[in-house]
């Protein structure tokens, strides 16, 4: 006998789980199915080596929406956040830049490179916060639909339009620049110091296959400042126990509201009859019926994997064919015998309690991109490093540490072909360690274990198409009402009763839980509960 649910959710990533929690909270009978043995998808904690627990993929919680934390009572269900204390940039020549919570100390730090930049920084911060304020309502509601004439939609568009045109001219100019320029060009208008600009510019390229000088990368700088606005309320941080704790808290909340969640339940296809989704078929052959099917997987896996082109309009397929994934990053997770010591700042300190960037200059970043353009990983990549065990001792045995290195560029499509990644994986890992050694000379001696994830591995193990960390690039033409396909940004799909709740839907990737929550809201009739 096939069992029946109001909704079945494919994928136990944090968005699928958030959707399940909101639906269950509204009294719906829901079932979430996860292929792997653990929940969380790319927001997952796993004990990779005995005693060492990692945020295997995503490692910093940035834009997790505060209203979702409230609605789902995540702190009651075990979510504990530890704010990042600083951003640290070590330099190969023994210098360094530390930007922390104390504005005065940060000013002094920056003025060692440029007094002018040190003074400009707060101005820039204010300007960007204003921009962030303008953009924030967009990520907290469904995307505006420019073709709709429904009063609610028109109001939303008008509001945004007014936001846009009523702004004083200088702000308007800033907005336009932000949406068209490259991160570097944009920052050049404000700052002179390379050392300051480089670590700021990288936020424009994370998760895209673009360089810091590519047009359109400026806008992603905003995301950082949106975090800063919440930042007064501290949303940038580590989740205690790793980012999997976010997913686990959402899952606990979902279960509390009555949702059923299964792991090791791999969906093979979505059952479609008469153009309507009716349930799913598992790889085991089990059939599960539901009034609605929600996909928490990326758009390509969802539509070309579970649904099939034959069930979709051509136009939609064409739109999806041009939706870009192009994974460009990898991850190296290390177990360390002791705390690493940087040449430029030996010993322990605030600089180890935040994120650490290897991005010693704009040219360095551009060189890293050059190699990737021609199908190689960067010999000297951009690294974003965290050592969460410094603030969360539960992650490693006493005195030992876990180090997570996000690495860009590591193109999915290396010149030998993506399927050759397994042969190049360890050499790629070596390049990362060699890079680290330029700042931490004894790093090789203190590495106890190492895990290297190429985009190919991320695709194979975590199900992210082409290893793109955000379920598709977060570039302007793939955002808002254009995500994933123009006209289909509101979680609905061309298949009746099939919904998309993942990072591949508005407002996109990152540990936000917004796509999942907003999808549930759309399914429940659009009301905020």
């Amino acid at each position, binding site marked *: 006998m096939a069992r029946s649910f109001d909704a079945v959710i494919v994928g136990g990533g944090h968005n699928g789980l958030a959707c399940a929690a909101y639906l269950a909270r509204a009294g719906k009978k829901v079932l979430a199915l996860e292929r792997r043995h653990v929940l969380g998808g790319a927001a997952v904690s796993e004990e990779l080596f005995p005693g060492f627990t990692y945020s295997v993929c995503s490692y910093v919680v940035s834009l997790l929406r505060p209203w979702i934390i*409230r609605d789902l009572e995540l702190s009651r269900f075990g979510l*504990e956040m530890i*704010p990042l204390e600083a951003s640290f940039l070590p330099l190969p020549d023994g210098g360094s830049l530390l930007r922390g919570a104390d504005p005065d100390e940060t000013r002094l730090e920056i003025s060692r490179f440029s007094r002018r930049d040190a003074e400009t920084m707060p101005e820039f911060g204010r300007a960007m916060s*204003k921009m962030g304020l303008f953009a924030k309502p967009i990520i907290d509601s469904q995307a505006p639909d420019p073709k709709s004439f429904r009063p609610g939609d028109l109001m939303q568009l008008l509001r945004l339009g007014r936001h846009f045109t009523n702004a004083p001219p200088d702000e308007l100019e800033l907005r336009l620049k932000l949406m068209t320029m490259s991160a570097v060009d944009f920052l050049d208008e404000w700052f002179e110091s390379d050392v300051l600009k480089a670590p700021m510019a990288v936020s424009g390229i994370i998760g895209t296959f673009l360089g810091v000088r590519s047009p359109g990368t400026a806008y992603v700088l905003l995301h950082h400042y949106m975090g800063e606005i919440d930042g007064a309320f501290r949303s940038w941080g580590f989740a205690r126990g790793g980012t999997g704790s976010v997913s686990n808290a959402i899952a606990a909340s979902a279960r509390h509201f009555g949702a059923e969640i299964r792991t090791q339940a791999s969906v093979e296809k979505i059952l479609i009859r008469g153009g309507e989704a009716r349930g799913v078929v598992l790889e085991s052959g089990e059939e599960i019926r539901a009034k609605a099917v929600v996909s928490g997987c990326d758009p390509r896996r969802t539509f070309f994997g579970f649904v099939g082109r034959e069930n979709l309009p051509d136009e939609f397929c064409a739109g999806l064919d041009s939706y870009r994934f192009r994974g460009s990053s990898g991850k190296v997770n290390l177990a360390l015998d002791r705390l690493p010591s940087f040449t430029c700042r030996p010993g322990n300190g605030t600089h180890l309690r935040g994120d650490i960037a290897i991005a010693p200059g704009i040219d360095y970043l551009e060189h890293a991109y050059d190699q990737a353009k021609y199908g190689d990983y960067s010999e000297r990549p951009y690294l974003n490093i965290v050592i969460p065990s410094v603030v969360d*001792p539960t992650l490693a045995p006493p005195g030992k540490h876990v180090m997570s290195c996000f690495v860009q560029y590591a193109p999915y499509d290396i010149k030998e072909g993506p399927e050759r990644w397994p042969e190049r994986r360890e050499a790629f890992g070596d390049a990362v360690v060699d890079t680290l050694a330029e700042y931490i000379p004894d790093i090789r001696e203190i590495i106890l274990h190492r895990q290297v994830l190429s985009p190919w591995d991320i695709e194979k193990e975590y199900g992210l198409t082409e290893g793109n960390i955000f379920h598709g690039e977060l570039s302007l033409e793939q955002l808002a009402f254009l995500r994933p396909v123009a006209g289909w940004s509101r979680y609905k799909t061309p298949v009746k009763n099939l919904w998309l709740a993942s990072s591949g839907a508005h407002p996109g990737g990152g540990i936000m839980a917004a796509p999942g929550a907003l999808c549930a809201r759309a399914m429940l009739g659009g009301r905020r509960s």
Partner: protein
Amino acid sequence: MPRPTPFHPRTSELCTSLLYKEWAGCYAVRRYDVYHEREYYALRHQATVMDATPLYKYEVQGPDAAALLSRVMVRGFMKAKPGRVAYVCWCDQHGKVLDDGTVTRLGEEHFRVTSADPALAWLQRNARGLTVQVNDISRTLGALALQGPRSCEILRQIIGPSVADLAFFGAIAVNYQLDGKSVEGVVTRTGYTGDLGYELWIEAEHALFLWDALMEAGRIHGLLPMGLDALDVARVEAGFLLGGVDYTSARTAFIERQKSTPFELGFDWMVKLKRPDFVGKAALCSEKERGPARRFVGLEIHWDDFADIHEAFGLPPHLTPETCREGVPLYAGQRQVGYATSRTFSPLLKKYLALATLQSGHAEPGTELQIEVTCEYERKVARATVRELPFYNPERKKAKPPLAPAREGPV
């Protein structure tokens, strides 16, 4: 000039912000860093230690010790068990609250009382005809509040694993131990944070020994020293009112309406009326019959309203990270029905919370009211909903703490 506490040599070394407050005549650290955030998170996720020495502390001893306390407090102590602590308030003869604090029974004829304001005269005045000694030990007894989920793990290293058996509001005599040295003291499972936690009592002359022992034991657990700013956020989450902020002592009130009864403060559960005469009994009996006119409650301010008010000015929502202690009016429609006294943003719950006093008819949990919000010098209102206290109530607060197996290897 405030005086240093016995822990001052250590706390002042760590207090890089140089921000102090005067607390009961002593220097008390507000926050060690520029921001108190690290201390707050350490409290909720690791452990913190706070110098609580400025509390007023009294030793009550003698055959009539229990009788004295039963006479002045709103509950009786004749049957209180040794090894137990009680949170309690005391009133004047009109049933108006003077202060709140703790009473610990250490032995048959031996109690300790803590209070926010001096209470020696009050205790002695009421001791007439009783065989009892009241001594002020405020300056000779040091106190540290060790609070947070890992507090038990840390404490076990200096007093042994039996600490895990200490029940919520229990008290034990202990030997603090470090490097072969041993000092006597008392540990109570109490605190002002609403979390798992302990208060450690020790003679002032050994204060630094205890501080050092704790810091050493706490190193691998992320123990941080905590100041009053972080505490002020935590105590609102925990729903603890603060004398002088959330209510006015009958001793300092200038007019009648500034005074409160225990029922108005939500202390109903601690008032025991079916017992022999005690200070304020008659007044409290009739108050109980009438029902209190006001109620102390929790409020959650609607964040979206608060953000919208700011957005209308083109501003992001803004709050100070410290708890705000300026009272603001609460309305039901056009009518003012109460006031909020402490307001804070809970970083953990992501909620804007307040402690408030409301007319009884408006105090039911779930009632929606309006709170005044000032933005750009203009007065606006946001919706606020009455909530059950405490806002934050983790299971570990009362549960038996699980101890990890003893850890080995280098730390």
